[in-house]
């Protein structure tokens, strides 16, 4: 096993290994919702899904691993304690992850086989004398130094903050290799190092840590200092290529980009760009062993009048750092208490959000002060494959999203019919579409229930989803109606499903539609249209009502090839409202609001 733990395989450890294999605790990539959409039942297969990678010993990859999630999956894998295993269901290329220990088909049968195989793998190789550290570009860490009070001050070397004179605090940023095309170095904070499950990676030994640091720190240093110039805040005529002291007044030189617009960065604070954590929370902690007390004699030349006139009032200690001065530019909070903000990534593998969706919340206490959203934007891949034959397109649409592929294919069929000039009567297909919608609704309910910890509801919704998926819809019609009625009426669930004023259909409307669908749905997939003639030409458009709003597809077909395609999905529009609907909300409430939107990460743009 590649993820074995170092050590001799003693008799006692054999017992431990058997226990690990008998009851694997899995973390699912991209997420449990995807596993549900693929018709998998983890608990029935003898697996125990867990929320945190630290509690897991098996990384379960469901379906092909999207390249955009690969780095985050590597971080996730690195966060798992050893011994750890990788199970790939229907996934082939796992780089940068090591090859999977168990590869099986993407089905419940496959899952069962994988569980069996895991047991053997653990029993045989959970411990090993020789283990290799897992390393991936996404894990490499570059240390940069930032001021706890001025997050916009970023330097590659330790020293004092040019604005307030505080000792700069080391902070981890993503390695040079992990950021492709991000020009600004401050964006690293929100980038790959944070893209994983938690705000930081994890280390198995000091040697690995040191190695990363030395390696990446060295590499990026040269790159950064090339572009940056350093200037004195008091004497703008002094411009140097290297950090140092001003020859006129002795102040520490500050890098040009922080000198340019000290206020501008604060303005950008609510967005994801700058890492707003100032000391407390995700970064700043206890590490004063390396540094002594702040040595004032070291920067004796620091000119305090640069702050403001206020500091010179008699009776105030000469080296006093005014907190009023330092915090006055920071953005205010909704409650008027300006506190330190932290940017916390939720996702892409967050247990309460759709798998693949990355939500970054700026938290002020536990109140959301800003939000950013990143999906996988796979709709763009469709544009890249044009012109394409209808069959290719259909295949691509089927693989586009595990959640809404059914809708896409139905859209394609009806758009093609429209292009042929036939009247598209979606009402004919409405029973089949209603079933698709119901499946979506059940996943939506299960997701919300998981987020809110209502395990029973989640299990029920997932069970019904499974029955509906394998075509036992008629048998569970009554149960579906019962579930729907319960959600509409039960007082304990009312706080969740009574949200108003959000974009898209309100939860109450969606539940009402669900009740209609339960009465109307038929147990079959939308009928496929007959393949049109190979030389057909035309333009067609189709609209399908999904649970979250209308999806629209416009096609231009020339001589049997699709040359132009416009796919408009509800998630694209809904994603724009994220910042608005989460603003000033408590964290759990904000997550619930995002979850209520039922975004499909495969549709949301980056």
């Amino acid at each position, binding site marked *: 096993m590649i993820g074995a733990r170092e050590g001799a395989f003693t008799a006692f450890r054999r017992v431990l290994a058997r226990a690990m294999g008998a009851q694997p605790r899995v973390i699912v990539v991209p997420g449990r919702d995807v596993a549900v959409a693929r018709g998998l039942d983890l608990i029935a297969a003898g697996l125990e899904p867990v929320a945190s990678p630290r509690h897991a010993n098996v990384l379960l990859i469901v379906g092909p691993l999207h390249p955009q999630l690969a780095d985050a999956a590597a971080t996730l894998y690195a966060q798992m304690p050893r011994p750890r295993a990788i199970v790939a269901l229907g996934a082939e290329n796992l780089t940068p992850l090591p090859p999977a220990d168990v590869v099986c088909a993407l089905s419940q049968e496959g899952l069962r086989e994988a569980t069996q195989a895991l047991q053997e793998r653990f029993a045989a190789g959970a411990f090993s004398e020789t283990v290799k550290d897992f390393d991936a570009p996404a894990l490499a860490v570059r240390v940069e130094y930032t001021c706890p009070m001025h997050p916009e001050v970023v330097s590659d070397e330790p020293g004092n903050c040019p604005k307030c004179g505080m000792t700069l605090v080391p902070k981890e940023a993503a390695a040079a290799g992990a950021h492709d095309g991000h020009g600004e170095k401050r964006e690293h904070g929100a980038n790959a190092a944070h893209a994983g499950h938690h705000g930081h990676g994890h280390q198995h030994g000091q040697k690995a840590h040191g190695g990363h640091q030395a390696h990446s720190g060295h590499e990026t240093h040269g790159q950064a200092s090339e572009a940056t110039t350093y200037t004195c805040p008091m004497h703008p005529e002094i411009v140097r290529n290297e950090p140092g002291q001003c020859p006129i007044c002795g102040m520490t030189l500050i890098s040009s980009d922080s000198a340019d617009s000290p206020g501008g960065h604060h303005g950008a604070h609510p967005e994801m760009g700058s890492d707003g954590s100032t000391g407390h929370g995700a970064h700043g*902690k206890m590490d004063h062993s390396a540094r002594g007390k702040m040595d004032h004699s070291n920067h004796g030349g620091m000119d305090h009048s640069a702050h403001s006139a206020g500091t010179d009032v008699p009776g105030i200690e000469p080296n006093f750092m005014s907190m009023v001065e330092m915090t006055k530019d920071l953005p*205010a909070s909704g409650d008027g208490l300006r506190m330190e903000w932290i940017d916390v990534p939720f996702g892409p593998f967050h247990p309460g959000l759709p798998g693949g969706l990355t939500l970054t919340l700026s938290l002020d*206490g536990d109140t959301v002060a800003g939000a950013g959203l990143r999906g996988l934007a796979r709709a763009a891949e469709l544009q890249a494959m044009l012109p394409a034959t209808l069959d290719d397109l259909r295949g691509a649409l089927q693989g586009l999203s595990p959640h809404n592929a059914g809708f896409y294919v139905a859209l394609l069929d009806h758009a093609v019919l429209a292009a042929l000039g036939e009247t598209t009567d979606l009402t004919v297909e409405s029973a089949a579409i209603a079933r698709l919608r119901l499946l979506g609704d059940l996943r939506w309910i299960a997701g919300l229930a998981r987020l809110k910890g209502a395990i029973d509801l989640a299990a029920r919704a997932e069970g019904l989803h499974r029955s509906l998926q394998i075509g036992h819809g008629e048998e569970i019609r009554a149960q579906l109606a019962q579930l729907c009625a319960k959600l509409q009426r039960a007082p304990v669930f009312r706080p969740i499903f009574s949200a108003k004023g959000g974009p898209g259909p309100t939860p109450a409307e969606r539940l009402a539609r669900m009740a209609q669908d339960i009465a109307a749905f038929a147990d079959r997939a939308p009928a496929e249209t007959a393949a049109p003639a190979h030389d057909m030409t035309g333009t067609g458009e189709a609209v399908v009502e999904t649970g979250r709003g209308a999806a629209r597809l416009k096609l231009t077909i020339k001589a049997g090839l699709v040359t132009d395609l416009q796919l408009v999905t509800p998630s694209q529009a809904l994603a724009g409202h994220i910042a608005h609907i989460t603003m000033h909300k408590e964290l759990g409430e904000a997550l619930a609001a995002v979850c209520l939107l039922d975004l499909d990460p495969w549709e949301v743009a980056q």
Partner: protein
Amino acid sequence: MSAQLAFLAFFGAAALWFAVVVFRTHSMVRSALALLFSQTAVGAMFLVMQAEFLGVLQIMMMATEMSVMAIFMVMFMMDPGGLGAMEMTHQKKRSLWAGGLALIAALGVSWLGNWGPVATQLALPARQTELLGIELLGRSMLIFESAGLTILTAMIAATMVAITPLEDEPKKERHHGH
């Protein structure tokens, strides 16, 4: 050396050590929790001195108080993790002198004073608790009730001071934020 003396010395040393840590660490959370452990050690001293009710009460109350202290420290400090190793003191020398003098004075008084005979007989804890209850609701009832009233007043007053006047609030936010 009696067991009581040994335990008293142990918990006393712990209380003093944690008290010093409060002002020596840069991490605000550590500082607050060091104060908690100092107070807990004081509570343990009460237990050693056979004041069971007071000891348990002290241990219970301080856990809450100091945890609240910790979150306020994190809220109000620039660098709660202590990473920047900021200097957060002033008039250090004078304070040291003042603290030292107070210590010496208190020690002097306590060591020079004539405390008279020391009591050895003591009521059992259960009886003590009962007696304390009778004291509280008998002779000292007025004091006890005023203490309760003071706490209530302080709570209400503190809340009043802390909350924002509702009308000013949105204006200020707009002014600062954007």
